[in-house]
């Protein structure tokens, strides 16, 4: 057993940490600052990263190897390990700025979409709406059938989290055989419509991906059951890693604030109620960190890791929510102000707990396996 980061892992982690500190956290002030002294009536506007800043950031991230993390070496990518991706997303999680590398399943680079995805001329998103409840697709109700002239996808409508993407990966089961297939669907294909965008309570948007009489060439069928499971596990690890970053940022800021803020003649740091919140949080961060790293390491070793990834995501995202909750409480009124990052983390963490497997469903699946064993 050797839990030390290798030199290479350390380098990746430090590169990501530096990028996040210098490029993302440095821009947070401007991003979070309220633009007008008084707000117009109605709900606050959705915050968005300045499009020009996004382009610059993407370019800089690409330069230091923090973009297209799954890109194989023959495309000039870094083909990072799962452990390295956890280390990277853990650093990105420390910033509330909505900017992070998008994960693209590696098998897509072996298709005709490989090059445009690699050079960024098309953007990519997952359309796995039905995987969010249980974290798997065994009860998927979207079907397809294969005919000589192509695959016919049954009409469906589901929410997707990145509706402005050009290419979607969409799972469906074959009628009869129940075999799972992963389809690459372009937004400009006949029978594909994207509905109106809906604001989420996080700063994100969703829209419906609607398929009506959608017939697509069989070559768009790119993966099967295992690829789908790996896509889900990889997203779970991303969420877990991002949650770790949120936890660390909230903990660090809370420690700092508790040292400085004085009430009734003593710093908050000397109050047991504050100390215990942070002690309990630190345990959750520690356990979630190592569950996540172990699951990623298992992925790299080609050991089974789907259950481990699901557990890491469940515990880590819950920890991130607890971390944001604690940070808000310790920062008091400032904690809920939108000029500080904690309320943003709070909203984001609450959503992450609902993605790629809700807690009670993941628990139930684990419990059922144990009862039957």
């Amino acid at each position: 057993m050797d839990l030390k980061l290798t030199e290479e892992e350390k380098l990746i982690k430090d590169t990501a940490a530096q990028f996040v500190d210098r490029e993302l956290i440095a821009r947070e002030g401007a991003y979070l600052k309220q633009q007008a002294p008084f707000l117009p009536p109605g709900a606050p506007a959705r915050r968005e990263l300045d499009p020009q800043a996004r382009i610059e950031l993407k370019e800089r991230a690409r330069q230091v190897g923090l973009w297209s993390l799954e890109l194989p070496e023959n495309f000039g990518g870094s083909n990072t390990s799962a452990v390295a991706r956890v280390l990277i997303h853990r650093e990105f999680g420390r910033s509330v700025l909505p900017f992070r590398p998008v994960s693209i399943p590696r098998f897509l680079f072996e298709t005709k979409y490989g090059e445009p995805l690699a050079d960024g001329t098309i953007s990519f998103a997952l359309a796995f709406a039905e995987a969010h409840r249980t974290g798997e697709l065994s009860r998927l109700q979207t079907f397809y059938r294969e005919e000589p002239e192509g695959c016919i996808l049954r009409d469906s409508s589901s929410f997707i989290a990145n509706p402005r993407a050009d290419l979607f990966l969409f799972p469906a089961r074959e009628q009869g055989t129940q075999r799972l297939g992963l389809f690459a669907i372009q937004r400009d294909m006949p029978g594909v419509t994207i509905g109106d965008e809906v604001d989420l309570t996080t700063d994100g948007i969703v829209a419906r991906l609607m398929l009506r009489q959608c017939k697509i060439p069989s070559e768009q069928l790119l993966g099967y059951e295992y690829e789908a499971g790996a896509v889900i596990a990889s997203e779970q690890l991303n969420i877990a890693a991002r949650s770790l970053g949120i936890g660390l940022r909230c903990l660090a800021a809370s420690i700092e604030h508790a040292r400085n803020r004085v009430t009734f003649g003593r710093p908050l740091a000397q109050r047991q109620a504050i100390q215990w919140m942070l002690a309990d949080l630190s345990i959750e961060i520690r356990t979630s960190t190592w569950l996540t790293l172990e699951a990623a390491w298992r992925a790299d070793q080609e050991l089974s890791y789907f259950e481990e990834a699901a557990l890491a995501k469940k515990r880590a995202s819950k920890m991130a929510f607890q971390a944001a909750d604690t940070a808000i409480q310790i920062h008091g009124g400032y904690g809920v102000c939108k000029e500080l990052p904690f309320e943003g983390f709070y909203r984001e963490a609450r959503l992450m707990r609902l993605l790629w497997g809700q807690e009670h469903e993941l628990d139930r699946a684990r419990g059922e396996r144990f009862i039957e064993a």
Partner: protein
Amino acid sequence: MEFHLSSDEENLRKVVAEFVRDELVPLEPEFTNAPDIFEGSRWKSRVKSSDDPEIKRYLGIMESLEKKAEAKGLWRLDVPKQYGGTEISNVAMIAVTEELEKTAIPFEFGNHVSNILYSCKGAQIDQYLWPCIRGEKTSAFGLSEPASGADPSMLQTTATPDGEDFLINGTKMFPTFADVADFVQLFARLPGTVGHEGVTCFLVDTGTPGYRVARSIATLAGTEPCELVFENCRVHKSQVLGEVGDGWALNQAWLGNRRFQVGIRAHGQARRVLRVVADLVRHEPKAADRFAGRIGHFLGEIEALRTLTYLGAWKADQKMNVRSEAASVKLFATELLHRVTDFALEVCGPSGLHKNHVLARTFRHARATRIVEGPSEIQRHIIQRELFREGAAALALP
């Protein structure tokens, strides 16, 4: 990053797994209704001197297990090589206990020696350390007092120098096994000192005039800790362990890496408790449906405990500072075992509290673990102290 055990450690783990499968698991039916003579993985005090034929029969089983384990090289695993042991790493010791905890048979590989006895010098080595390693002598640990528990720096027992001797006066609470031990590792302070200063550790033989074991005290956990009284107990200066006035460091070192053993034991116990629950609900679809989620939740928490325990043991092997990890493991492990057991009783109903029921035994044991060797509140205190000392860097990856 590498989570696998080394090949030597993996081989050892396999030997233990085989031992558990071949020697311990077949005994399970025999132990289901064993008399109440053990708690956790240890025998109760005075069991070994019992004349009860039934108890003697169980002792016979245990002795034959000890011989088998010793023949397989599973004895003295954590004893340093210079004392004839295997000196395996903390991580390997965790792996060994993880395998042992897969069965409820209360068996552990000996002989565990109180780690501070490795500070023995000169004649003490032959008089105390070697006999403990060989299993000929056992020791008790005298630190807590009627008015000093979680904060041992308040201890009041005094050791007054008198020529070549010290005169010891005071009362010690809760050393387990003091009633059967051959000697006690006693902490006392030099007159006029306070706090960590002047604390000195003595090795006091049972039977030394002025030292008596006043009584043993029944507890919820079934352990029988003792009350020790020292009245002008005269002890020669050669009985000082380490240096005069340096006892505080020994007290701090004593718990040491045992914390991680507490973690992996709770891990195994909690899993076994959940196995009992799963067996209860397996053939009742409604109950299985109702409880599957909570069983799954606790299984995940148990995995979290496991990973934290291995992390701490590994860091201890690297000689890194593990104060936070040790406190985290102790806190998380004992609180979790308690919650799991509470849940299991909820599923099982009142029959789970039948005195010999496995859940009842765990219930009684689990409550005490949240106090013994440092209550949960002290663990939180230790963790927050490190957090405010080091900031979030306390959680940096190694």
